[in-house]
């Protein structure tokens, strides 16, 4: 389970790099909006890419509780391994 999460985190960070400045360091605690400057439109596009990458559906409603990279990875993990 932990390795699944780690793999998701790595793949998520790879995607996030496309949405932010090249030299920004991304850690699990990084704040998506305040530190990576991912605005609402970028976030919606990111979610579409994540859905395709992991072959899951991420309801927009679930994003209300997501602020950090870790929280997004956790959401993907939950959907991928427990809800589908």
């Amino acid at each position: 389970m932990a390795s699944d999460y780690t793999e998701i985190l790595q793949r998520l960070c790879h995607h996030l790099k496309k949405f932010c400045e090249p030299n920004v360091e991304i850690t699990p605690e990084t704040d998506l909006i305040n530190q990576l400057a991912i605005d609402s439109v970028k976030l919606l596009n990111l979610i579409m890419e994540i859905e395709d990458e992991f072959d899951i559906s991420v309801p927009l409603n679930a994003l209300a509780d997501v602020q950090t990279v870790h929280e997004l990875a956790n959401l993907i993990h939950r959907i991928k391994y427990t809800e589908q």
Partner: protein
Amino acid sequence: MSLLDKLDAVAAARKALLPEGIDVFGIPIEEVYSSTEAKIDDRRILFLGTNNYLGLTFSPACIQAAHDAIDNEGTGTTGSRMANGSYAGHRALEQEFADFYCCNSCVVFTTGYQANLATISGLAGAGDVVMIDGDSHASIYDGCRLSGAEIIRFRHNDMADLEKRLRRLGERSRSTLIIVEGIYSMLGDRAPLADIVSLKNTYNSTVLLDEAHSLGVLGETGQGLVEETGLIDEVDFITGTFSKSLGGIGGYCVSNHSQLDQLRYISRPYIFTASPTPATIASTRAALKLLQAGTELRRQLWKNAHQLYSRLSELGYQLGPEVSPVIATILDSPQQALALWKGLLDHGIYVNLILPPAAPEGKSLVRCSVSAVHSGEQMDYVGEIFAELREVIQ
């Protein structure tokens, strides 16, 4: 950050982007001369940014009907449709819309925004899924949020993307409401309705089509995209607005599903809003008759749309993907869009300015909306000014 700090941040962002001395997103219209002309800042201005597609706002029949309704029934209903706000006119308009679409049921709402809010939140709920096009209008997003259903977006007009997302839902596709628009307000393109209906049937889903910008514009009698494509029997729910081709304000939902009427008892936006004024209902009833008989108006509307689209295309402007009365000029930066918008206004032409994040794909839009009652001379003048301003955005 406090409540008011958030608003200060909005003010700072606006100040950084928008020019001083002009309220870009709240220009006062000082006087209205006709469906196409008004006074702004003491100057005569050509309206090219309204949704007055058939030019009915100054129709003598609509104005007379509104006058009569005020004389006979007063200025407002002062009550919800569920309480004292359903007059004979409200019911008659519902019947006339149902007849127009050859559908069993119609519910009339106070605004088009409310029609989507009320219909979507009444149809879908917790445990259901709403599948929406990425370019959907804010009223669709807000209706989905209010519903409590899971919201999934698909890429704009991308049918492979829609199918992929329906497939992922498995059995849940049966409790999924797919929501699309007849003509999208940002780029003016149509939904590929035949493909959407085919997917709906494959996955046993339900389709809601918002004809806000296509009512009166598409189809022989102006029903919208459902008429143009001959798919009215395949679409489950149709919503629309009175505030565009009908020249008033209000909204509707029609359906052959008899359950539509139950929205009157469960849909909070319907229950807790005062009903449309008698004048609005009366002018809309008159406008609906003109819309149905408006073949010549539609011919003129499309002639104007083709003329402007061709002219802007020849000039090298990047436009939406297809000709429609909504003609969006796509700019790479907000500064380019502002310069074009201001240049047009300085030459007496009012259009809509749409900046990120409201515009798709991080672009900015200068959006023209053509009317059936724009004259050939007015269209020629607009073309001349766009030619003159071409270098502004180079």
